[in-house]
């Protein structure tokens, strides 16, 4: 645990709040119901925190994305049941920090600059992250719910 010095902890906490605030902003832009806003922010913050932790422990961005999306989706399912809201509301907003927006942009940018090597490498890593995110979501959403009340 020598990795977790005070400075590193400080950055992690800062990143958590930044990601939560960023998620909150986009949840507002997506017209999320007001009572669900803080939970959306929580989901975004948690996802990004796990991602940062994984990167800190030496994972590459693809592995870190997979490690982050699993607890994130679990959290969205728990929240969906507790708050009686669709999973989509939490998932669409909470995944925002993890989504490879910058990767798509770089791919298209290098493609247009005809820097084919960089376009291809960016494209492949973006595609990998998107596939990993989708797989993680599908895995967690595929876990059947225990039927209690029916």
């Amino acid at each position: 645990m020598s990795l977790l010095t005070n400075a590193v902890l400080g950055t992690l906490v800062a990143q958590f709040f930044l990601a939560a605030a960023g998620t909150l902003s986009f949840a507002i832009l997506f017209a999320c119901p007001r009572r669900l806003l803080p939970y959306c922010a929580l989901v975004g913050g948690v996802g990004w925190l796990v991602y940062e932790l994984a990167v800190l422990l030496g994972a590459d961005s693809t592995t870190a994305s997979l490690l982050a999306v699993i607890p994130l989706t679990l959290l969205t399912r728990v929240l969906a049941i507790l708050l009686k809201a669709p999973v989509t509301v939490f998932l669409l907003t909470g995944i925002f920090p993890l989504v490879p927006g910058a990767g798509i942009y770089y791919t298209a940018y290098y493609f247009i600059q005809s820097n084919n090597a960089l376009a291809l490498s960016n494209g492949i890593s973006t595609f990998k992250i998107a596939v990993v995110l989708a797989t993680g979501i599908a895995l967690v959403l595929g876990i059947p719910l225990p039927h209690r009340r029916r």
Partner: protein
Amino acid sequence: MSERVLYPDEEQRRRIMDFIMAAGQTLLENGAEVFRVEQTMEIMARSFHLREFHVYILTNGIFASAGTAEISEVRNVPVRTTHLGRVAAVNELSRQIAAGGLTLDEAEAQLARAQRIPFPNDWVQLVAGLSGAFCFAMIFGGTLRAGLAAAVAGLAASSYLLLCERLHLPGGFRKITTASLITLVCLPLCHLLGTEASHAIIGTLMILTPGIAFTMGIRDFVQGDYLSGTIRMIDALLVAACIAIGTGFVLWCYSLLTGVNIA
């Protein structure tokens, strides 16, 4: 006709069908996933005793029939925005219908209410754009100054997007010009503040980038909705190309200008 009957007559069947189609369209228009829309519509049909209900959904259209093709309806859903409040409201409605607590009249009224939930106020959207750009510039490793530049650009971009909404400008043009505007604001500001511009630009571009569309497109693939997935992916790629064209053009002009200045 307000009670829920086990064997609805022809007119009722038509009303139920219209209601279910409208509910599905509301969900699809406001950002719900294809298989959720399908699921919700099927639950509603079962609850209202609409027999032989079959539905096929694409990212931009709904096809459904009921009662051995006695009724069939098609809805074109060309415009997609993201309004999660409406998605949550229709979801709540389907929950109540499945629980058996609502008549068709009440359900129709509640759906109409859900469709009219407004977007947040203009100034709320502006502040959200500002803080979103700031946070993502910092998350992508920018300094505090880069964050501030991104905040200014975010404010400019979201007010420009609101203006485009008023003027009904076409989507592609909107994306190219907004990306140009963001780059145009970030470059001189970051130069003034003495920090790297790339973090600020990418952070602000998060307002536009189709990361969600891309990931949801792959989710559609995983789910087995290959056609919907393809539509979303092509959409995402076109948006990314628009953004890159807008940003690339301004960056090219900038390097040309500064290059001339230095020489």
